[in-house]
């Protein structure tokens, strides 16, 4: 027992005070949360990173007097399995489901939940249609593609004005998967209205399964772009940046208006200094929120080698929302949760943005993106100012000048 632990406990205690009413219920039966994630199959990496958020949640929430009992099920990145596992979790007594990362699987699980009157809190899934289906039991604490894009593009404008950087032409590279196409569609729709100070020149859709991206980068380079907008999915970001270095393509900035890829452990490990200065505008943990500090400390202890990612934060928050609803309902029964969830107004949470609250469709519209810049192989919040840890550095230094 070192002083570190006790300090962490202190912070936890302070946070717990906010949830004081919860303590009265702490003797009650824990809330049974069923978590559905793609732990194997094509999305295993993402699913397992989400799972770390869940693993750490049990302890953190217990400290807050929000006892939960977590059961994790693997969707195997298969829609039939996702559906069947959801049924199994409910059959085994899960009172609320959390998941399921992939939009297709989330749709399948949502229908099971709707049928069974069990709430589903979506940790991550960006397809706008999910909350347009009139589900009564589905709540999403993740921005839609449109929201992500609007925030992402506005932050680019802010970044350019803060750093005084002038760019003329952007090349837009996007993975042609579900998420990438949704984002690309939103950018096409929203960019004109935002009066961006640059033109989007070449738009390059690429296959996430492609083995190398020499052509993609070759095209971006040939277009004469000085800004690269990138919507990647995961390790494709690594290959794209590596290819830029090899082809000596040095844009003034590489910015993702809201996608995974450039703030992940593997990205830093593989690219080292070449991964620095890239920017991602996306919802991020608010480093200044008290609960965030508790969470980050617990995460650091349980997963000393892992990096805290957006996936972790949103999975944690989804479970937090469920626990909060149970506290307010004074019951862990699904019915009570369903009555309490629409009234959610959770100001003490971890991701940047206003209090968590759901609109009539079950969508939380208070999530805001932050600009995250890679600095010394670490993601750092650089905008908005009230959350910033450092100031943004643009233009990026050239590859050979690092």
């Amino acid at each position, binding site marked *: 027992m070192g002083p570190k632990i006790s300090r962490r406990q202190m912070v936890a205690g302070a946070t717990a005070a906010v949830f004081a009413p919860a303590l009265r219920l702490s003797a009650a039966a824990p809330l049974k949360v069923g978590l559905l994630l793609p*732990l194997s199959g094509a999305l295993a990496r993402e699913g397992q990173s989400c799972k770390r958020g869940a693993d750490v949640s049990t302890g953190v929430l217990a400290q807050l007097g929000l006892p939960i009992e977590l059961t994790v099920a693997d969707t*195997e990145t298969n829609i*039939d399995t996702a559906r069947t596992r959801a049924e199994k979790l409910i059959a085994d007594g899960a009172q609320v489901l959390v998941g399921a990362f992939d939009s297709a699987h989330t*749709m*399948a699980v949502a229908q099971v939940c709707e049928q069974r009157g069990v709430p589903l809190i979506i940790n991550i899934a960006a397809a706008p249609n999910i909350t347009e289906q009139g589900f009564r039991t589905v709540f999403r604490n993740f921005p839609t593609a449109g929201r992500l894009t609007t925030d992402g593009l506005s932050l680019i404008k802010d970044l350019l004005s803060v750093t005084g950087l002038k760019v003329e032409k952007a090349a837009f590279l996007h993975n042609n998967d*579900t998420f990438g196409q949704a984002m690309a*569609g939103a950018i096409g729709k929203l960019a004109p209205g935002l009066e961006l100070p640059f033109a989007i020149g070449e738009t390059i859709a690429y296959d996430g399964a492609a083995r190398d991206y020499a052509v993609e980068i070759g095209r971006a380079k040939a277009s004469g772009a000085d800004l690269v907008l990138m919507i990647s999915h995961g390790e494709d970001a690594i290959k794209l940046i590596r290819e830029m270095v090899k082809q000596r393509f040095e844009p003034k900035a590489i910015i993702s208006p809201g996608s995974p890829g450039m703030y992940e452990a593997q990205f830093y490990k593989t690219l080292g200094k070449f991964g620095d200065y890239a920017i991602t505008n996306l919802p991020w943990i608010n480093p200044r929120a008290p609960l965030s500090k508790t969470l980050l400390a617990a995460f650091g202890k349980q997963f000393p080698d892992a990096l805290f990612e957006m996936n972790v934060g949103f999975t944690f928050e989804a479970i937090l929302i469920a626990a909060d609803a149970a506290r307010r309902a004074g019951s862990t029964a699904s019915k009570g949760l369903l009555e309490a969830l629409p009234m959610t107004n959770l100001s003490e949470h971890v991701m940047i943005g206003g209090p968590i609250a759901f609109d009539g469709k079950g969508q939380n519209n208070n999530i805001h993106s932050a600009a995250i810049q890679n600095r010394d192989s670490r993601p750092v919040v650089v905008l908005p100012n009230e959350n910033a840890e450092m100031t943004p550095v643009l233009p990026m230094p050239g590859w050979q000048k690092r």
Partner: protein
Amino acid sequence: MKRTALFVLIGLFLLAPLASGPYLLSLLTTLLTFAYLGQAWNIMMGFAGQLSLGHALYVGLGAYVSAALSLFWGIPPILGVFPAMAAAALVGSAIGFLSFRFAVKGVHFTLLTIAFAEIARLTFQHLSALGGTGGLFLPVEARTGVDLIHLRGDPRMFYYVILAMAAALFLACRALMASPLGYRWQALREDPAAAESLGVNLLRVKLAAIALSAALTAAGGVFTAFFYNALFPDQWFGLGYSIEIILAPIIGGLGTLFGPILGAILLTPLGEAITAVTDGLGWQSAGIKPFCYGVCLLLIVKFLPDGIWPAIRKRLP
């Protein structure tokens, strides 16, 4: 004996929803879907000997055509299923005709079916009118009650729909097997040259097998579309799905009527059983279940190369 077993099986399936909870019902729906799709695939491979590894193509086509008709023109699936089946039959016939015309056989034919399924997957990824990779969504309304015309209702309705489809297909296949066409398919499967010398028109017989198999698979796709209400090209056109479709009939016994059903009865719960066992043993590592599934599959092929049903049939009086 066989007849009794059949009646017991049908009886069990009919009564299952009364005794089972939603979880079991969900599992049984998956099981019957694969029994149905496997049976439809079996027409082409088991009966006529044409190995298709791209059957997801027809599931996807059926799903997308019926969903698009319903979404854009308000045509209910009960009518939409016909154009969906026709579209699949047409595509299947085109592939069949090309392969016949250019004498693409054996492994090459199989790779041709994969290639067409992949081309379809990539095409639908880029069809923004049908949602592209963003997905095509059917409105999820009226989740209670029974509306067979629009295929809206609760899970029990879907269960009985797929049960009826699987049973009807089983009976149809039994009739087909004993029909002149069925015997010509088997002749084509066993020895095309000998079949031809006995007056079998290979092109016609082959096209009939592919078109029928494709159309019936597409009908399964229509069911799937309205069951899941969300269509993504990678999901329904993917090679992974094609492989899933053919596991049950091969494990159950290729070319037999009971094979696809028995295969599905074994394989669908096998996944669940492995999950239960690994969870029970406390093996939490992700990937352990598909790993064990692979091992089981390997053992089955190794020791029951002809499938389960032929092994059982040998022991039946």
